[in-house]
C-alpha cells in the first residue's frame, strides 16, 4: 500500500521569497515520487521526478525537491517565488513495481504568491 500526505492545503508567500511545499509519503516498495503543477484551466504538468538516482532532483522553473528516505519526505522548494508560480501543486507516489493504477496523488497544495 502507498499513500502521500501534503501537509499544507494552502501556502502563501511574497514574491521573491522562498517556497516550501511539504510532502510525506508511505510506500511498501522503494517509491518513485513526482511533483505536478496545475495552473487554472490548464492540464497538470510534471515539475520533476525522483526515480532512484540522485536524491536532490531539479525540475523546471527553478523548482527542486529532495528525497529523504529517513524522513519519508519529498518536499518541493524554490529559492525565490514568482507571480507565475501561483498554482496548485500535487505530490505523487508510485510503487516501483506497480502499474499505472499505483499512482497515488496527494490532495494538493494551493500556492498563492503575493506582490
Amino acid at each position, binding site marked *: 500500500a502507498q499513500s502521500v500526505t501534503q501537509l499544507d492545503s494552502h501556502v502563501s508567500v511574497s514574491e521573491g521569497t522562498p517556497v516550501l511545499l511539504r510532502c510525506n509519503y508511505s510506500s511498501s516498495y522503494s517509491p518513485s515520487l513526482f511533483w505536478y503543477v496545475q495552473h487554472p484551466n490548464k492540464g497538470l504538468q510534471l515539475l520533476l521526478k525522483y526515480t532512484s538516482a540522485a536524491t536532490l532532483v531539479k525540475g523546471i522553473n527553478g523548482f527542486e525537491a529532495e528525497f529523504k528516505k529517513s524522513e519519508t519526505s519529498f518536499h518541493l522548494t524554490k529559492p525565490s517565488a514568482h507571480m507565475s508560480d501561483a498554482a496548485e501543486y500535487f505530490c505523487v507516489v508510485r510503487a516501483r*513495481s506497480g502499474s499505472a493504477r499505483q499512482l497515488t496523488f496527494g490532495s494538493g497544495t494551493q500556492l498563492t504568491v503575493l506582490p
Partner: protein
Amino acid sequence: GAGVSQSPSNKVTEKGKDVELRCDPISGHTALYWYRQRLGQGLEFLIYFQGNSAPDKSGLPSDRFSAERTGESVSTLTIQRTQQEDSAVYLCASSLVSSGTSYNEQFFGPGTRLTVL
C-alpha cells in the same frame, strides 16, 4: 495535436441523465488514463488503457461508469444516470507505455468540469 485535448470543457447536466466525455490523446501514446478530481482533493484513478490489452477498470466507482477506446485513438468516458456526487473534474492523460520499473510521463488534458444539478 500538440497535447491531450478533452471535450467538452464544461458540462452541466440534470440528475439521472447520461453524459459522455471525450479525450483525444497525444498521437503515438499507447497508454491512456482517466482520473476524477473532486473539489479540494487529489486525483482518483478511474481506468487505464494500454494498446490492445484489456483495460484496467479497477478504479471505476460503480457500474454507471464505463469507458471505451478504439486502438490508440480517442477515448470516451460515459456516466449513466448521473448523480450529484459525480460532480467533479474528469481528467484524461496519455503516455508512452509505463510498466514495471519504467515510468513514462503522463501528459494531462485540461479536464472536463461536470456539474450535476
